[in-house]
């Protein structure tokens, strides 16, 4: 029967790749990438999205290719100034950005809202143009959204730490969370380079990456723990290598399915979801490789003495 046996195989049976020999290269590469990401984070920094920056974004579709001068003139007629007008997506789509009044002014929230209406009126004066989306987020709300987003990130990391700590020994938990933090910095670096806007949806993407990455580490760790019981005298480096090789087929299989699931979203998901999906794709690659090249070497460094303590031959008296 054609569908009975698998037609393809990902990883040849019984690989014996010596991953731990390259552990310092892996850690060094990761450290360099993460430091570079941190530098990027401080300069030029993340492109904050509307959620976290506050302000006004209006997406409009014009009849025929957008005439930027006409749009600017229409905005000026409604006394809307300092508006950034740019094209996005197709040639007839425009994005209009406005900054909110400084929050030192007493009625800044009301004025922010009034400005959206002015932009709408301006679009209304252009023949055939329509507003696709209009968002206005006041300064107080954006600060709050940012705080909540960061809180969700922080607490998730802590919960993951607590769970792995509860299920495994502490070496596992610490190396998993250190790896996750390194993954996180790289994702931030990716966001800076790609100029994807950092907003609530991106926080969701990053949390999903962290969840996926943890999942991947748990699978490898689970096997390490199993092998620790099974091969009581094997050196830890060899044992970790064995565990990675045994789970390699699964690691690559699962990352492929998640990658395949997210790929169409990145390609056809539309403006609002493709950024999210690209970050996901990046995260899948980073999360999968960090299980092998970061989390496992870290476990080796931290657990070399302790995890193999009971493996020493009994002392004769």
């Amino acid at each position: 029967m054609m569908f009975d046996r698998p037609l393809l195989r990902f990883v040849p049976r019984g690989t014996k790749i010596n991953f731990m020999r390259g552990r310092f290269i892996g850690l060094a590469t990761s450290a360099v990438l993460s430091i570079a990401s941190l530098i990027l984070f401080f300069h030029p920094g993340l492109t904050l999205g509307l959620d976290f920056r506050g302000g006004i974004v209006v997406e409009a579709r014009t009849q025929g290719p957008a005439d930027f001068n006409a749009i600017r003139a229409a905005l000026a007629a409604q006394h809307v100034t300092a508006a950034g007008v740019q094209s996005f997506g197709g040639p007839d789509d425009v994005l209009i950005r406005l900054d909110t009044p400084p929050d030192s002014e007493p009625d800044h929230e009301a004025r922010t809202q009034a400005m959206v209406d002015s932009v709408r009126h301006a679009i209304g004066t252009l023949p055939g143009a329509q507003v696709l989306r209009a968002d206005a987020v006041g300064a107080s709300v954006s600060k709050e959204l940012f705080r909540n987003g960061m809180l969700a990130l922080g607490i998730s990391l802590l919960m993951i730490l607590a769970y792995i700590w509860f299920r495994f020994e502490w070496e596992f938990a610490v190396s998993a969370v250190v790896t996750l933090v390194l993954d996180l910095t790289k994702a931030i670096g990716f966001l800076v380079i790609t100029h994807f806007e950092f907003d609530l949806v991106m926080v969701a993407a990053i949390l999903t990456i962290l969840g996926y990455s943890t999942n991947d580490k748990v699978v490898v760790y689970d096997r390490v723990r199993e092998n620790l019981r099974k091969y009581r005298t094997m050196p830890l480096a060899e044992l970790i290598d064995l565990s990675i090789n045994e789970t390699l087929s699964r690691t690559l299989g699962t990352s492929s399915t998640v990658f395949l699931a997210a790929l169409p979203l990145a390609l056809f998901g539309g403006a609002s979801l493709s950024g999210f999906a690209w970050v996901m794709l990046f995260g899948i690659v980073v999360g999968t490789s960090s299980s092998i090249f970061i989390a496992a070497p870290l476990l080796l460094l931290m657990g070399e003495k302790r995890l193999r303590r009971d493996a020493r031959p009994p002392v004769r008296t």
Partner: protein
Amino acid sequence: MMYYSRLRMASVIGVCLIGLALCLPNVIRQPMASLPWRQIHLGLDLRGGSYLLLQVDMNSVTADRLRGLQDETRQTLLKNSLGYRNLTTTAHGVTFTPRTPEEAQPDLKALRAMPMNVPGEFKVEQAEGGQIALTLSAEAARQRAYDAVTQSIEIVRRRIDATGAIDPEITRQGDDRIIVELPGISDPERVKNLLGTTAKMTFHLVADSAIGSAVPPPGVEMLPMTDGQTKLPVFSHVDVDGADLTNASASIDQQSGEWAVNFTFDSTGAQEFGDVTRANVGKRFAIVLDNKVIEAPVIRTAITGGSGQITGGFSAQQATDMALLLRAGALPAPLNVIEQRSIGPSLGADSIRAGGYSLAAGFVLVIAFMALFYGRFGWYANIALLANLVLMTAILSLFEATLTLPGMAGMLLTLGMAVDANILINERIREEVARGRSALQAMQAGFERATGTIVDSNATALLAHVMLFVFGTGPVRGFALTITIGIVTTLFTTLLLSRMLMVRWYARTRPSTLPV
């Protein structure tokens, strides 16, 4: 591990069938009114509409209370024949200087006996320099905001219902906020204006004697006219309160041909209105809406019928909206819009299309991958994947959850992650086969060993997304909800359904080698 009782099989299949039945409301019409018919709602980002976040203007609530407190203080002191100087309101309270230092103790005693809206609403103390200060507590301020929101929600709902909006959702958020969701309304300007008006209407006599004087005498306020240029002195005392209105409607005035708002008082209001107009024929009576004078006509005769008319040079829309606001009642405090998101219907349709295609394409890719790399067991995983999609849809329908664009992304990722459990089991079986185990032993070991890993890896993902649901806002919650539901359905479909398919196949064919 390798045995499924009939009961167990029946219940697994039963759950899948129930899931399938629960999905039906999303695709076909309700056949009978008596049948529960729950379906997934499309989020505003998919169907178009507006989201408004309103915040009660606490400054105004506090200012109102402080004015009241100042009034009560004055009356309490007068009632006890105590004197005062420099009675003013500060940011958080009221201060005054006692007439003589000896009166300070009686002042404190009298003021501490004043009734409070909530226990511990304010405290009365003597400050340095002999001044007496009444200070509102922060706790009471929060309580007032909470109460203001409770009252406002009802009025907001009445106002929005009156505009004919379909399925508006009005919910409280936190202590001092209201979320208004308006499906299908992609330009919320009118609603925003309606909600931005307090619509507090009062009737005051005009202080004609004070016209032209720079500083109004005590008890008289200078209020702006609606034209925004001139100001009119009116007595602060409210003669008739608009809260006593029973009805208001817009119509064209027969004589002038202008738009006008007709209103009717309840019996209390009609009585008061009659009394005031009877006693003040020939004087001007100001109609004040939100501290602006709409008009100040001269009272020609006593109006005893309990109804009246306002003409203020309205447009048709203005007259209709004003009648609507008067009917719905005044807000206890102004509401400020602090966040607004609106999506046009065409963008929503684009999003559904893009999301739908991506979902379908991702699904097909995953299915093809599993079939190519895992053969027969891969197909079983695919059947489980389909059941997973059905069950997710069923649970979302049952909760009448709102599907947003990030929610669709969540479904897609769940499907990608769902096959992980099958991959774990299959890889384990492969390993066991490679070690030379028999088909039965290999499958048994595969299920046993993989289960712990599956539970561990899903538990961590579950934790991350429950956190996201708790702390997230708006569309992110939809994403977290779908993934959380997805993890639960995944555990069911992989640990029970796809395993059952594998076990049944084994029991039926008793193969000597496994297709791995």
